[in-house]
């Protein structure tokens, strides 16, 4: 398959619509390493987030404020673009990130104890850039884009996120005029926390929906070092 067959939205980059041997090798090695206990899928997700060093600061503050301020929460759910302006992000003029095509319908997806959202762009790589920064590289791979809509629990498990069966998983597909961000459930153990403390645990992956916020887990946290659960030993 060659030539101009990639789907493109205005202002977005073309995509490689082909699974390469190297992509397959990277996944195969990672899965075998996880199965052998060299590290966990959750470890790998955290290191990937660290590697990419994105700072979805506005989105994190947005969620922390929505957790603390019922009025802002209502505004966030009714008119996310107006709520974004309160966070200093104007979707009409997204300086630094994005293109005019990023002026869209922006919607905040509210999680509940029995409903979990995750976002994707199955056609290309649409992403709420003004508020979350650049998308992670894995978000743009055919692997994620094709499989998250068909087998969401399997793909979430690959990120180390295992949801109980009684939690409904809803996958929202972005497009050139419609972008989404997840508003996760505020986790237990954060009672009495300040907006700043809450902001720290709302990582990019929580806003996409491939991770859940947890007290003590921040993008910049010192990562624990522990031995493999099932270490491989030489004979």
């Amino acid at each position: 398959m060659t030539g101009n067959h990639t789907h493109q939205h205005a202002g977005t980059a073309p995509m490689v619509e082909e699974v390469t041997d190297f992509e397959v090798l990277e996944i195969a090695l990672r899965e075998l390493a996880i199965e052998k206990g060299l590290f966990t899928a959750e470890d790998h997700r955290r290191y990937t987030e660290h590697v990419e060093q994105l700072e979805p600061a506005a989105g994190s503050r947005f969620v922390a404020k929505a957790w603390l301020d019922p009025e802002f929460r209502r505004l966030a759910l009714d008119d996310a673009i107006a709520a974004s302006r309160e966070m200093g992000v104007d979707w009409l003029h997204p300086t630094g990130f994005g293109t005019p095509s990023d002026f869209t319908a922006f919607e905040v997806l509210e999680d509940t104890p029995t409903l979990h959202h995750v976002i994707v762009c199955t056609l290309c790589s649409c992403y709420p850039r003004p508020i979350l920064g650049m998308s992670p590289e894995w978000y743009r791979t055919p692997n994620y884009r094709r499989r998250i809509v068909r087998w969401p629990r399997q793909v979430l498990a690959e990120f180390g996120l295992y949801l109980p069966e009684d939690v409904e998983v809803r996958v929202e597909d972005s497009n050139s005029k419609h972008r989404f961000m997840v508003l996760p459930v505020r986790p237990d153990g954060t009672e009495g926390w300040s907006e700043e403390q809450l902001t720290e645990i709302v990582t990019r992956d929580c806003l996409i929906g491939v991770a859940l916020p947890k007290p003590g887990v921040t993008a910049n946290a010192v990562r624990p070092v522990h031995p493999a659960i099932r270490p491989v030993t030489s004979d």
Partner: protein
Amino acid sequence: MTTDHDIASVRVRTLEHIVEHDQIWERVAAEYGVTHAVPPWKSSLDAMCDALDEEGSALPVLTRRDDEDRITREVYASLPHPENQLVALAHSLVARNVIDETELAARLEAVRARLDAGGS
């Protein structure tokens, strides 16, 4: 464990096939008109290296890095970066008996089937 001396001389035919197939990023990116400099799996590979270094003891960091330098130079000199980094890591894990080559070949086939099942 295989000694350092043997690492580069071990032949891993599964990886040789991948090299021969030549689906390097530079080539497929050009074919699809993509200008991004690195392939989408690069950050995941970096994270895998970090996770191996920090979370386990199967391939200590200095060993991994020394292997990478030596194997990319001596075995996979025809591959560009970061393909050579990825293949060198796989070579190192196989040559040091952390991952069995037969097991790797089977997994490659399974992953390929799973990803292709996603359709286009």
